[in-house]
């Protein structure tokens, strides 16, 4: 074949099950126990309400800058649902629904945004990694955890998340390459929410889809409507099962939208139209899932009201717990090394002297300084 077109290897599948206008593909509809469906909804709602509460706390200066996840509740939840406890959930920072599902305490989430390291301290019984700030850097350790899982032959799977913007970083590429070369049990989910702060998806990469980046690593990909939790559940299950069975990584592009600002420091009006936001509000995962469950008679206004009330109470408790937290001003020295170095011991004494001797754990609200 002196000159020929070579077929491009690989497969991209696209899955939508519950459309934003309520159309349901019953053939593809996942068959989950009713209780689970309701529980998923509760987590979705909880996420939405916690997110709102955090915005509120931020406005009152009770936490710092906050990065909301409104509109992106379905994807992390649908993925987390199919993970086992022993599996690993490796988030970026917009996977609140997944954190909650996995058992991350609510007050720890607030503590993170409130400027406390303890917010990164995942409870010992949960195999999550904390919020990861340097974009896409988590893809590298996700690949490493999954590699470790393969070496340990312990049958665990890693689900890792990043954003559409994250795919531009070298770390995304290197992590994907390692994961695929070593054929590790990794499910890589890109939450394509159309924006990386002010940079729209089409300025981020010239590829028509994010999913097709899988071709570069010789693996298959899926595109799901990331606002359709049913589609996410189906895609995630397939990818997780495949990973668990030694089939290696899958790339999932979840098409979604950041309905709110990038963070509370951001003003999205500067770079995107109201009309665009409106059009995506119509695709909001939460009402969509609610309507589905109502049709199934798993929800009604009364149940929802009780749910909301319960959640509100839980949030109140969590906020109270958050605000009771007292941090140790000297703890900065204590976790640098397993054994404190002489120099750090000396510097700890310096700080003690500066603070006028041993100071009891402090309560510093977000307003204390600045």
């Amino acid at each position: 074949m002196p000159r020929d077109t070579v077929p491009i290897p690989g497969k991209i599948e696209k899955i939508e099950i519950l459309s934003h206008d309520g159309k349901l593909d019953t053939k593809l509809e996942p068959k989950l126990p009713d209780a689970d469906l309701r529980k998923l909804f509760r987590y979705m709602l909880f996420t939405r309400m916690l997110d709102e509460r955090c915005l509120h706390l931020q406005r009152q200066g009770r936490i710092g800058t906050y990065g909301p996840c409104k509109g992106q509740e379905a994807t992390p939840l649908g993925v987390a649902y199919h993970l086992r406890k022993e599996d690993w959930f490796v988030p970026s920072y917009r996977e609140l629904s997944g954190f909650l599902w996995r058992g991350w305490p609510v007050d720890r989430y607030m503590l993170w945004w409130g400027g406390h390291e303890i917010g990164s301290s995942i409870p010992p019984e949960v195999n999550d990694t904390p919020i990861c700030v340097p974009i896409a850097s988590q893809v590298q350790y996700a690949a490493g955890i999954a590699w470790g899982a393969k070496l340990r032959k312990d049958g665990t799977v890693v689900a890792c998340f990043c954003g559409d913007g994250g795919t531009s970083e070298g770390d995304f590429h290197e992590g994907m390459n390692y994961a695929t070369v070593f054929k590790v049990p990794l499910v890589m989910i890109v939450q394509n929410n159309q924006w990386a702060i002010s940079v729209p998806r089409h300025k981020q990469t010239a590829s028509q889809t994010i999913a097709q980046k899988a071709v570069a690593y010789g693996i298959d990909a899926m595109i799901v409507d990331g606002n359709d939790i049913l589609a996410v559940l189906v895609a995630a299950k397939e990818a997780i099962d495949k990973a668990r069975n030694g089939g290696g990584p899958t790339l999932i592009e979840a098409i979604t939208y950041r309905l709110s600002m990038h963070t509370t420091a951001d003003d999205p009006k500067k770079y995107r139209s109201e009309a665009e936001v409106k059009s995506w509000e119509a695709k909001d995962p939460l009402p969509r899932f609610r309507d589905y469950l109502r049709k199934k008679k798993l929800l009604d206004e009364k149940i929802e009201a009780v749910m909301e009330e319960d959640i509100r109470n839980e949030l109140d408790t969590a906020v109270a717990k958050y605000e009771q937290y007292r941090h140790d001003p000297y703890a900065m020295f204590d976790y640098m090394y397993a054994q404190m170095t002489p120099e750090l011991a000396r510097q700890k004494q310096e700080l003690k002297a500066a603070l006028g001797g041993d100071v009891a754990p402090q309560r510093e609200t977000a307003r204390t300084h600045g």
Partner: protein
Amino acid sequence: MTDVALLVDVGLSFRDDLGIGGPARLDRKQAMAQLTMVKALNLALTEVMRENPNVMMMGQDVGIDEGVFRVTEGLLKEFGEDRVVDTPLAEAGIVGSAVGLCMKGFLPVCEMQFDGFSYQAFHQVEGHVRRLRNRTRGRFTCPMVIRMPYGGGIRAIEHHSEAPEATYAHLAGLKVVLPSGPRNARALLRAAILDPDPVVVLEPKAIYRAFREEVPDAPETMPIGKGVIARPGKDVTIITYAAMVRTVLEAAEELAEEHGVDAEVVDLLSVAPIDNDLINASVRKTGRAVVVHESYRHCGVGGEIVARIVEDSLMYLEAPIKRVTGYDTIIPFFANEQNWLPSSAKVVSAALETVRF
């Protein structure tokens, strides 16, 4: 072997009469505007971009969003998409492609959105930016600027409060400047862009909007590598830079008022090159020194300053030199960051110990 032609080419004129001093030396008669540092930096960018069509501004969210701190406000509108570029999310991509732009005669100004993400571009800075002139014996040069918000104090999340000046200053081939106020920020950024070599501009974000300063109408440059006396004094020299200049000046007031100690404050403005003469002249006068910076102490700029003093002025020293710095720990998440940062109180007690030694 100095490339004088190139100097002229990019319009570099480090004439001494254009050099301005710190806040204490604003004595020329000119129309003045009261600006924050953010506005002053924005002014410098606007001015240079108007003068020289080869200057480009590139980085994440520097275009339509006008920078997360709004330093690039109005630039996209005035200069268009070719010159003010929203790049994909990759720091090494920003710096690395800017190296290529330099080879095509552009003067790219690269924004790293935060100090903590400049490390993603580190290998391009280390491997190419700082080496290009030397490696090619002047055939190619790298007249780019890498600017970034620097340091702590704004209650930001992890990786948004880093102080990497020693890391850059250690890399031969770079220049590293740190403004301490609106006026010198504008003059240093201008100087950095006009400089025929790569300059890292670390902009102390804690004072981006903390105060305003009079800034003259006409563009100014400052010579890179020269510091200023921010406050003259005779009892002890306190050497510092960036946001810490304010902290130290506050400490100096307290030292004067409460303790009768007259501190001289040296604002370095540049840590590579560093103003050896100014440091040593002041220490020879006072016989005592304290160094203050917010980055890690270990192998920080403070050690370098001490070594310079010891090399040139040991015999003038009447007391050990204290370093008041960030501790050798990860800078705490923001609830506790103020305990990590040097404070005016910490400076006062270090100065008193030095004076009373």
